[in-house]
């Protein structure tokens, strides 16, 4: 992971025991006992065991696990709706477990907005009043919170619904209100607890897309809980995989798919991992523009600019792939007064055939950022695969 990014939240060795004597349970845990044995011996449930991870500023971190994995407990530990039994959680410089009640309220108001699985909208308040809730709690003046809340409602596409009551809205729209309530609050971290799980699949997909768009605009640090791997792969910058209250793997969607940490993860991703069947062809896009090896550098540059790309594949008349021309090289060719680009091509890119398993493509992307060229047996260029398309294809396959 990129080392230069700022860490927003540090979760350090967090454990949570549900019961009256957490110490005894944690001691047994340290002796190597697992959840069921601890429950049997102490009557207490080990909800979370020694969880550590960082949340980077501006990233969308997905915490994923099946029910009982402790993911809902974990997200509630972040803003201390649930007190932890051991470990530390640090946001910026604040140690959340050691805050006083008053400091905790202040910390929640400043740092955390939350979106809930079943929306948790206030039925006696209008959409606008719901969206204002966080600001109202913080004591913002009515005129200002009205303005901010209206802006948030616009962002989630609920213009004109300000005076409706939650029970007049569909599930998807209710969750938009929930999202608006969180956005209006402008806290530094957005917590989303299975926020889309209660929605039907189409609306859910739509909300995921909108969240990604919002995310690209606002770069809000987001912790998103889900039990759905497709959703995790689709929206997560990184994924923390939980099982029985323990972290199984932390990584980017690619890492989870290509380097599963253990059999559990492997079994887990099998449901989604259609990449064994999916091939390069399914993720392939037609090439928007190519150059001929006889073209002049200015022509090639022009085409790159037209299509907003910084490299272009070069073929001969019969579309046999000759090489790749980068924009910098093309400029050099112009400066050198070269007639054709044929001397400035690079072969430093990857080609695959159309039946190459999609899974293998991940590794190739980590080496080079160029699109991967898909060619037939005679090295004719059929299309290209870009990084996003691979994930997109996997997620789509998971939906079907």
């Amino acid at each position, binding site marked *: 992971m990129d080392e230069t990014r700022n860490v927003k939240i540090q979760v350090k060795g967090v454990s949570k025991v549900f019961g009256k004597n957490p110490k005894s349970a944690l001691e047994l845990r340290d002796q190597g006992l697992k959840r069921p044995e601890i429950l049997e011996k102490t009557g207490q449930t080990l909800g979370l065991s020694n969880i550590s991870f960082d949340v980077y500023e501006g990233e969308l971190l997905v915490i994923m696990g099946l029910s009982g994995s402790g993911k809902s407990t974990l997200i509630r530990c972040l*803003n201390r709706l649930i007190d932890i039994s051991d470990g530390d959680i640090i946001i910026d410089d604040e140690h959340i477990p050691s805050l006083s009640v008053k400091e905790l*309220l202040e910390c*929640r108001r400043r740092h955390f907005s*939350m979106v809930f699985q079943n929306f*948790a909208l*206030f*039925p*006696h308040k209008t959409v606008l009043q719901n969206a204002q809730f966080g600001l109202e*709690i*913080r004591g913002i003046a009515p005129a200002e919170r009205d303005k901010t809340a209206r802006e948030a409602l616009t962002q989630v596409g609920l213009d004109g619904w300000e005076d409706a009551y939650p029970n007049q809205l569909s599930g998807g729209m209710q969750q938009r209100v929930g999202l608006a309530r969180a956005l209006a609050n402008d806290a530094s971290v957005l917590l989303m607890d299975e926020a889309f799980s209660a929605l039907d699949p189409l609306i859910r997909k739509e909300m995921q897309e909108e969240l990604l768009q919002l995310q690209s605009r606002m770069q809000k640090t987001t912790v998103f809980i889900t039990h759905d791997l497709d959703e995790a792969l689709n929206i997560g910058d990184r994924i923390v995989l939980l099982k029985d209250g323990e972290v199984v793997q932390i990584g980017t969607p690619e890492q989870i798919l290509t380097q599963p940490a253990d059999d559990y993860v492997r079994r887990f991703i099998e449901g989604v991992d259609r990449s064994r069947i999916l091939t390069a062809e399914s993720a392939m896009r037609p090439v928007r523009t190519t150059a001929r090896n006889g073209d002049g550098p200015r022509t090639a540059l022009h085409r790159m600019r037209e299509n907003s790309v910084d490299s272009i594949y070069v073929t001969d008349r019969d579309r046999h792939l000759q090489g790749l021309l980068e924009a910098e090289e093309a400029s050099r060719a112009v400066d050198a007064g070269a007639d054709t680009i044929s001397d400035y091509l690079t072969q430093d890119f990857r080609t695959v055939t159309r039946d190459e398993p999609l899974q293998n493509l991940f590794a190739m992307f980590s080496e080079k950022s160029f699109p991967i060229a898909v060619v037939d047996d005679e090295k004719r260029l059929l299309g290209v695969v870009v990084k996003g398309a691979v994930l997109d294809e996997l997620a789509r396959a998971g939906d079907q």
Partner: protein
Amino acid sequence: MEIQSIPLGDWIEGGLTWLTTEYSVVTRAISRVTQTGIEGLNAGLMWLPVWGLLALVALLCWKAASPRLAIGAAAGMALIWNLGLWDPMIETLTLVVIATLVAVVIAIPVGILAALSNRLYRVIMPVLDFMQTMPAFVYLIPAIPFFGIGSVSAIFATVIFSMPPAIRFTTLGIRQVPVELIEAADAYGANRRQKLIKVQLPLSLPTVMAGINQTIMLALSMVVIAAMIGADGLGSEVWRAIQRLRPGDGFEAGIAVVILAMILDRLTQSLTKSRR
């Protein structure tokens, strides 16, 4: 050998005597304030001409509920006037209004506290059971040494008898607020006061109103019984009819009570329902 009976009654009497002598200043002050309230409200309602109050009640019924209730209420009140029971009806209404006000003012804060504190809840619920199952007449007896014969004693007994549902429903209403809404309020950093005012109270309002409705109904029934200790109103008409063995008069007054009860009940119920 004879087993001595426990002198429970003596103890209670001793305690009451002690209270009345020690706190006579307090009880006399309460008595004076309440008496003034009763007389003031009575005078106010009597000052209004019959048709004036009738129109006022009809209008209120129309606005809060339906034209049907307005017509029914007007007809019922006209019947009461026709039977010559207008003044006793006003006296009864006054007692109900004041007793309900006092009961609600005490009950709602107590109900809120009992909802928020489990310990208080465990203390208060048996007390409420006691208050509700004790035969209503019994409250009349200690009222007399405290406040003497008359309307103030009636109010005292009525408040005690009619308060429990308002407390219970307030507690229930607040405890029924869905936990996820409480969690949402917590997540956004609401403190206890904000949670109560912005979330718990508004959401429990329909239940609280149902409790107040119950309190009004109980107050009405108690105010009638309180005629036994000299409270004015429709109850004393009934009481007189019993003593003179005149069933006709008794039923006339009884029907007036029923009419008053129905108007109050429908009116407060519609206030409950019209809330979102």
